[in-house]
């Protein structure tokens, strides 16, 4: 079985993050970068399926700058077999639609039975690439998987998905299919020392984005980035609880918009 897992290198969001002077990008000067956490769940699920089935190969695919190779090496150290790096040194803001087209062009040339993506990237929170990629590849997509089971004959997958209202949907789908992973699907492993050593010898194929021959026009463009405004207000309520509580709830819903 051929499994492809799309991964992205993102800023480590545990750090203090600021803006460049032109307001067009995050100031990446003193930042560290990690694998997108949702892609870690995607990769972990890919590896678990590989281990359960025995005869399976996991290929990582990433689109980004040269330094994105770090996340590929991390993924290879976790247990993936090979990797493809679509390199674009110019990318700052990239329209998710275009990202999907770039990934589709590279992945479309490969044999695959299953594709895993994280539900979103924590830097741009686009929520789109997985679904867009499935459209472009002409395969079904099942989003926000909470459990994935491959059939004994390796021709179908059963995916559990929790939706609003506490409902669980169970999908059964023939392969190939694209599945997006979310928190709770599994607990991602750490790379072992033998894995890290082995990763150095695993193949990483590099493709320059221009070599894909695509129109690289974005369908959306970044106008600016700013820090969200922090507003501190206080309001004191006086009176009986049964009168005040509905007022507070209404304010929290309609003004603070936290409910």
């Amino acid at each position, binding site marked *: 079985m051929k499994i492809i897992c799309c991964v992205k290198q993102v800023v480590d969001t545990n750090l203090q993050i600021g803006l460049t002077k032109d307001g067009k990008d995050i100031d990446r000067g003193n930042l560290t970068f990690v694998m997108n956490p949702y892609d870690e769940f995607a990769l972990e699920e890919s590896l678990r399926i590989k281990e359960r089935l025995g005869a399976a190969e996991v290929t990582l695919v990433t689109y980004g700058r040269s330094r994105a190779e770090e996340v590929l090496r991390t993924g290879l150290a976790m247990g993936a077999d090979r990797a493809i790096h679509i390199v674009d040194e110019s990318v700052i803001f990239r329209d998710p639609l275009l990202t999907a087209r770039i990934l589709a062009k590279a992945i479309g040339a490969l044999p695959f039975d299953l594709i895993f993506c994280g539900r979103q990237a924590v*830097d741009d*929170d*686009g929520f789109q690439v997985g*679904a867009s990629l*499935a*459209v472009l590849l002409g395969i079904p997509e099942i989003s926000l998987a909470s459990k994935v089971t491959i059939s004994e004959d390796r021709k179908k997958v059963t995916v559990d998905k929790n939706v609003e209202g506490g409902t669980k949907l169970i999908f059964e789908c023939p392969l190939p299919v694209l599945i997006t992973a979310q928190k709770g699907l599994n607990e991602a492993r750490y790379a072992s020392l033998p894995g890290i050593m082995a990763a150095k010898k695993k193949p990483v194929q590099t493709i320059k984005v221009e070599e894909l021959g695509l129109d690289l026009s974005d*369908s959306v463009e*970044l106008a600016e*980035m700013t820090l969200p405004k922090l507003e501190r207000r206080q309001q004191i309520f006086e009176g009986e609880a049964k009168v005040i509580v509905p007022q507070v709830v209404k304010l929290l819903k309609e003004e603070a*918009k936290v409910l």
Partner: protein
Amino acid sequence: MTEDDPLAYLRGEISEEKRESSSQSGPYRCIRVFVDSMAGRLNRTSRQAITCGLNLKAELGTRLEAILINGGGELPKEISLFGMDEVAVLRIQEVVSSRTLTEQLYEFLSKREHGIALFPASRLAYDIAPRLSQRFGAGLVSDVESFFLNASAGTLEMSHRTVLGRMMETVVASTGRSPFAILKENAFTEASADKKDPTPICDVGG
């Protein structure tokens, strides 16, 4: 509105001659709100999406339509009381895959004029909106909290949070494209169905 007014262009309010020769056909000519229901009732987030649509309609001065999928009972009538220009009820087989639903929506929307597409924060939106936007080649922005009409630039700016909410990103659709937006939950208040004159309801077979 004059031909020099970028908003007039975006609304498609330009001469027939220019409209036919231009490859950019007024991407803001229409605002389309997709509404979702559960157990026969309009979702809270759909009401919020309607508010957003009404606000944009007031600013842009364009048509506003609601697209309701499989809404039965009193739901179309309720939606017709929000103050939109049209309510289209699309009848689609009840249990379909996202892929099939996308294709049916694509076929339905292809016959209509270009416009801004607003999706409520719901499972339907997150499943369908990326697929539809890819099919149309339209830019999609998720979790949009606010819109700003930049009249001098002739663009509609959409703002959403990124980097786990620590940055505010403002994005515009590229020239000539109609933007798709999934609205952030609770970013807009819930609209009330309190208009006296109901909007026409158009029942479209799937």
